[in-house]
């Protein structure tokens, strides 16, 4: 039994819940995707998108279009919607909305640090950062030589500061350390977000627990598959898994010692929610695993809208828009490469 959110939620959150539900109805439908899949060129895609909510963002783009341009402009729409919701939100919704952007912040930090290690220009790197993950002192990341300096000079004043306690070392930054830093930060962020949602309680805690647990489990599977055949040891791999989720702790123990995709499958098939995912892919192959996970995630995100008076709808909307942008990117790439027969390999329909 929840805490009577129906009586009080609309006082502070009613307007924004209505806004986000309105945004949700603007997501592309199956008929939109069918039209887009039949396009011959990127200009055709632009023409079809002009009839959707992306129209104003793409109409001034000159031909020939590039796939990265389509993704950038569609992302700008998401950023505008998010910023409108954030500036209208009060506590604790404003903190909840900020939590959604910490993942992008981590990606931007790693992008700047990696690019600097490879002697790239900082301005060039800043242009490639995700707009939702920007913060004031991000350009100063380029001067740090190790993680201790990274924390002391820049990140101590950002929301990522609490996540750094596990990865502060004086070792110089290299590709392996940066990868471990990325995954350790993301692990700490997910756990912090999970604990915050638990404190909120009610429908928000229940629905967000399910969504974040799925995210943690998917991360564990991806880390396992991507680390097969690399120098990452079993102990290091185990340390990157989050301390919550359906797979915690016994599934993580088995995943940590998996050496190929079939062993990962045998671990995951012990958990009923993931049996259906692995039933869609054949033995020994992992190409369609991403799509299977995305489809399951979209199903869970859509279910979040079935209840009212909770904050999980905001998280679900942001993730559904991200999926839509991924779909548009994939369709654009297939059209640009004249591989239209492969479009349905990775497009995930939302409705």
């Amino acid at each position, binding site marked *: 039994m929840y805490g009577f959110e129906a009586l009080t939620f609309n006082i502070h959150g009613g307007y924004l819940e209505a806004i986000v539900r309105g945004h949700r109805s603007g997501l592309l439908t199956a008929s939109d995707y069918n039209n887009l899949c039949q396009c011959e060129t990127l200009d055709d895609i632009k023409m079809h998108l002009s009839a959707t909510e992306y129209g104003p963002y793409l109409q001034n783009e000159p031909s020939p279009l590039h796939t990265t341009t389509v993704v950038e402009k569609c992302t700008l729409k998401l950023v505008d919607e998010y910023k409108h919701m954030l500036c209208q939100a009060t506590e604790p919704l404003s903190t909840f909305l900020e939590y959604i952007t910490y993942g992008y912040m981590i990606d931007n930090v790693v992008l700047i640090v990696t690019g600097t290690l490879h002697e790239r220009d900082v301005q060039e790197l800043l242009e*490639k950062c995700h707009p939702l993950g920007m913060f004031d002192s991000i350009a100063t990341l380029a001067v740090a030589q190790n993680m201790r300096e990274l924390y002391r000079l820049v990140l101590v004043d950002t929301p990522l500061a609490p996540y750094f306690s596990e990865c502060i070392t004086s070792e110089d930054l290299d*590709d392996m350390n940066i990868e471990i830093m990325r995954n350790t930060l993301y692990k700490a962020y997910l756990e912090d977000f999970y604990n915050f949602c638990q404190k909120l309680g009610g429908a928000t805690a229940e629905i967000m627990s399910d969504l974040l647990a799925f995210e943690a489990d998917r991360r564990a599977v991806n880390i396992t598959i991507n680390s097969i055949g690399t120098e990452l040891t079993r102990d290091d791999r185990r340390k990157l898994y989050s301390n919550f989720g359906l797979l915690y702790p016994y599934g993580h123990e088995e995943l940590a010692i998996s050496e190929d995709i079939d062993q990962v499958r045998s671990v995951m098939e012990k958990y009923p929610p993931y049996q259906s995912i692995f039933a869609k892919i054949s033995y020994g192959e992992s*190409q369609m695993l991403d799509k299977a996970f995305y489809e399951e995630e979209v199903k869970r995100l859509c279910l979040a809208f079935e209840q009212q008076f909770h904050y999980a709808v905001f998280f679900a909307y942001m993730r559904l828009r991200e999926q839509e942008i991924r779909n548009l990117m994939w369709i654009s*790439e297939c059209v640009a490469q004249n591989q239209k027969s492969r479009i349905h*390999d990775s497009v995930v329909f939302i409705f």
Partner: protein
Amino acid sequence: MEDDDRCSSSNPGGIGQEEEDEDGKVLRFLDSLDSYLTLLDALSSTLRQGWFELASARHSMGSSRISSVLLDQKVQSAATTFQVRKSIDGSPSESHPSFAISKWASSRNGKCSFRELEVSRVQKTSKNSELRHRGSSNFYEEHDLTINASSTISDSDVQKERSKSLSVFGTLVSPKLRGAQVSFETALDAIVEIANIRSSMLSAFTQLQQEMKKDLG
């Protein structure tokens, strides 16, 4: 006329031998032309596959993780080098350039280890009269390319070098990105083969032209 008859009757095998040599040259030229066109088709399909896998990896890992801004601009030794040699078939007038690629060359400990790819099997199969189908990306399965036995680099070292070159995108990358790397590596091998085939094709054509001029003269 009697002298001609005496000449032809006294050296019937010589004229037949010349015709056989000319036919051999024509066949060599046509075979290398066929191999060249088949390799071009195979290269096109391998590159297409590589670009698709790269797009698939970007879709899986995200645009920020696979981007041109992450490529390393530090000065570093080349992982792959390309050599041009003069190859002589028979007489010095029949020399033509041949190309070899040294993949994952390492200059550690003062040793140079490499793996060379030669097209010897393709040239041997040019003598067969069986039909080949173009437009197939299975060229590498049909023609088992020989690998020079002078390779001193092990498979695990090759895997390490591959992982090292992919590490610009991070150390935990998707299998799709690794697949794209292998596709582009295969395409690079194909380009070297095409260069070799084209070189021998042009050499065969030159010989044929000289033969025809001799016949007309």
